[in-house]
C-alpha cells in the first residue's frame, strides 16, 4: 500500500495542472463567446487567440 504515498500526490498534481490550465483559459477570455469561437475556427483568416478586453 505504500505505493499510495506516490500515486496520491501524482494524481493530485495532475488534477492541479488541469485546474491551473482551466483558470488560465478563463482569464484569457476563452469562455466569453463559446458560439463565436466555434465559428471562428472554421474561418480561414482565423485569429489564434481571443482578443484582450478592449
Amino acid at each position, binding site marked *: *500500500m505504500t505505493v*499510495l504515498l506516490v500515486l*496520491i500526490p501524482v*494524481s*493530485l498534481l495532475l*488534477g*492541479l495542472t*488541469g*485546474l491551473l490550465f*482551466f*483558470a488560465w483559459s*478563463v*482569464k484569457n477570455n476563452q*469562455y*466569453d*463567446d*463559446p*458560439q*463565436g469561437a466555434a*465559428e*471562428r475556427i*472554421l*474561418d480561414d*483568416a482565423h*485569429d489564434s487567440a481571443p*482578443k*484582450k*478586453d*478592449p
Partner: protein
Amino acid sequence: MTGSAFPLSPPESLPKDAGHPDNSATTDSPASQTLLYISDMHCGGCISKIEARLGQMPAVISARVNLSLKQVRINAAPHLPAQAMVDALAEIGFSARPLDSHVLPDDKAEMRATLLRIAVAGFGMMNVMLLSVSVWSGADAATRQLLHLISALIALPVLIYAARPFFASAFKVLRHWQMNMDVPISLAILLASLNSLYDALTGGAHAYFDAALALTFFLLSGRYLEQLARSKARSAAALLAGRQSRFATIRRRRQLCRMAVDDIREGDRLVSAAGEAIACDGQVIKGESETDRSFLTGESLPVAVRAGTRVYASEINLTGQLEIEVSARNTDSLLTRIISLVDIAETSRNRYTALADRAARIYAPAVHVLAAIGFLFWYGTSNDFHLSLSVAIALLIITCPCALGLAVPAVVTITSGRLFKGGILLKNATALERLAEIDVIVFDKTGTLTSGQFTAADLDRFSVQDLGVMRALAAASHHPLSTALYDALAARKLPEPALENITELPAKGVRAVYNGHIVMLGHPDWVAKDSVQSQFSGQARLGFKSPDTGVHFLCFDEHIHKDVPEMLACLDKMGYRRLLLTGDNTQSAQIIADQLGFDEVIAGVTPEDKMAHIQRLQASGRKVLMAGDGLNDTAALATAHAAIAPADALDAARSSADAILLGHNIQGLPFLLASARSAKKRILENFALALIYNLIAVPLAFAGLATPLAAAIAMSASSVSVSLNAFRAPGQNKGADR
C-alpha cells in the same frame, strides 16, 4: 462618445492593434467604445463580414464580434458617431442597434468567479471520489483513516472557496429571519464536512466529503446557468435603455437636430417629446408635463414638472413636450441609469413568486423537520449521538435540493437561448412561467398588429401655413399617425411656426397655442368635441384644428402586418381567447377585426379603460397577456399578468413589458407561448424526477442504510437526469414551429 468617456476600462487595456496591423489610427489618441446589438447574425460568415466592413472604416481601431451575445464591440476615434457604423452595417444587410455600454452591467467577473468555483469543486470532487472508491472497495483500519485524512485535506479548503456563495446567501437571509434554498444546502455541507472531519480524526467508518463536494459542484453548475440566462436578459434590458435615448433632439440656434446622446454637452437645449425617456440630467426651461420617476424614487404617481424643475436621465416624459437645459453629460448620469435597470428587474420580480421559490418555501422547512425527526428518533432508540447525527446528515444530503437547484435554471437557460435565436428577448426569468399560465391575449391595434406604416391621403388641400403647423404638432408626438404625417411633410419647404404650450394628452392628441389660437392634432372625437362641424366619416383617423380654417379630418391607409392573420389563426388553434382593445374609433377597429377574426373587439377606449378592462378580466380569474407598444398601452402592460412589446415600441411600453419581440416580429408570439408552456412542463417534470429520487432515498436514509456511496449515487443520478430532461426538445405543441 467623448474622449473622457472612459470610466469602465483603463487606457492601458486598449488592444495594441492586434488584429488590424494595417490600421492608421494610433492607440495614443483617445478612443471611444461603442457597443452594437445585431439581431440577425448567426454564423462565422456574418462575423467576418461585420468585422471586415467595420475594419474598412478608417476611424475604427478594432471591432470584435461576440456571437453568443450578438454584440459587436468597436473601438473607434471619438469623432465617429455610432450612427455611421449602424449605416455601414446596414449597407451589407445587418440591422444594428446601439447599446449603451455604460448601462450594460459588467457581470463578466461574477461569471468567471463562478466558473472557477465550479472547476475547483470539480477538481476536489474527482480526487476525493477516487479516494472514496478505495474506501468503498474495502480499505480499512489505518489505510482508511489515511485516505479519509487526505480527503479532508483536499475537501476543506475546496469547500471553503467553492461553497462560499451558498454560505453568504444563507447567512444573509438567516439574519433577516427568513429561509431560502441555500439554508439547507449550507447546513448539509457544513454538518457533513464537520462530522466527516470528526470521523477522519477518530478513525470512523463513514466520511461524506465526496457528497459535500458533489453537492457543491452540481449546485454551482445550476447557478452558472442562472447567471448565463440573467446576463442575456440584462443585455436585453440594456437594449431597451440604450436605443431611444442614444439619440436625442437638441435645439441649436433655433434649429432642431437629432444627435447622439454622448455628444450632448452641458448647457445644450434638449427637446424631449412625450413618451420618450429623458436623455440627460438637467433643468426644465420651457414646457409643462408629468414624468414617471418611479425608477429613481419608487413613487408610482407621475410627478408634475414645469420650468425650473430638475429632471434626471431615464425619467420618462409622459404628457407634454419639454425643453431642458442639460446639466450633466450622459456619462455622468451613468449611476441613475444603472439604478433604473436594477429597479426594472426588482419590481417585476416582486410581482410574482417564481416556481423555484414557491418550492423552496415548502421544501426547506420540510427537509429540516425530516432531519430533526430522524435525529430524535435515532437518539431516542439508540442513545448514540454520533450515529443519530450521521442519519440526520445523510437525510440532509440526500434530500438536498441538488436536482431542484438545477431543475429551473437549466430549463430557463435552454428555453431563453432558443427564444433568443428566434428573435425574442426575455427581460426577466419569471416571464416564462407567467407566460405559460396565460389564457387571454389582449392586442393593441395600432403599431402592434398593423405595421405602423400609414400613408396620409389628400394633404394638398391644406394651406402652407396649416401644413407647417401640422408638421410642428406632429413632431411633438410619437403616435404612429403623427410620425407618418411628419414623414410625409418632412421633405416639403414649409414655414416653421413658433408653437407655445405644446402638450400631448395620452389617447387624445397634441394641443398647442399658435398666434393666440388653439391648434390641435389628434383623435377625431377629441378635436371635433368643441367644434360645430363635428361630422366626420369612419375612415378619418386624425383631426386637425387649424388656427383659422376650423376643423379638418385626415384619412390614412393602414397596413396590417403580413403575418398577423396567420399568427392569430395559430393562437386560436392553441386555445387562446383573443381580444382587440384599441383607442381607435369603432368603425376602423371593426374593419381590422373583420379581416383578422377576434373573439371580442373593444374600441374607443382611453388608457384608463384599457387598464380597467384588464383588471376586470384578471379579477374574473383570467390570466391576461397584453401585447402593445404605445404610451396609451403602458398602464395596461404593467397591469397584465404578462406583457410583450415589439422592439421599436416606446421606452415607456418596453420598460413595462416582460418580453421584447425584435423588429416587427409579432408573429413570434405563438412560438413564445409554446416555448413557455413546454418550459413549464419541463420544470414540473424536473420537480417530479427530484421527488421520485427523494421518495426512494429518504426511507433508506431514515433506516440508517444510506452510506456515503448511496448518497453519492442518488445525488449524481438525479442531477444528471434533471439536466438531460431539460435538454430534451420542446414538446410537440401545435404552432411551436413558426
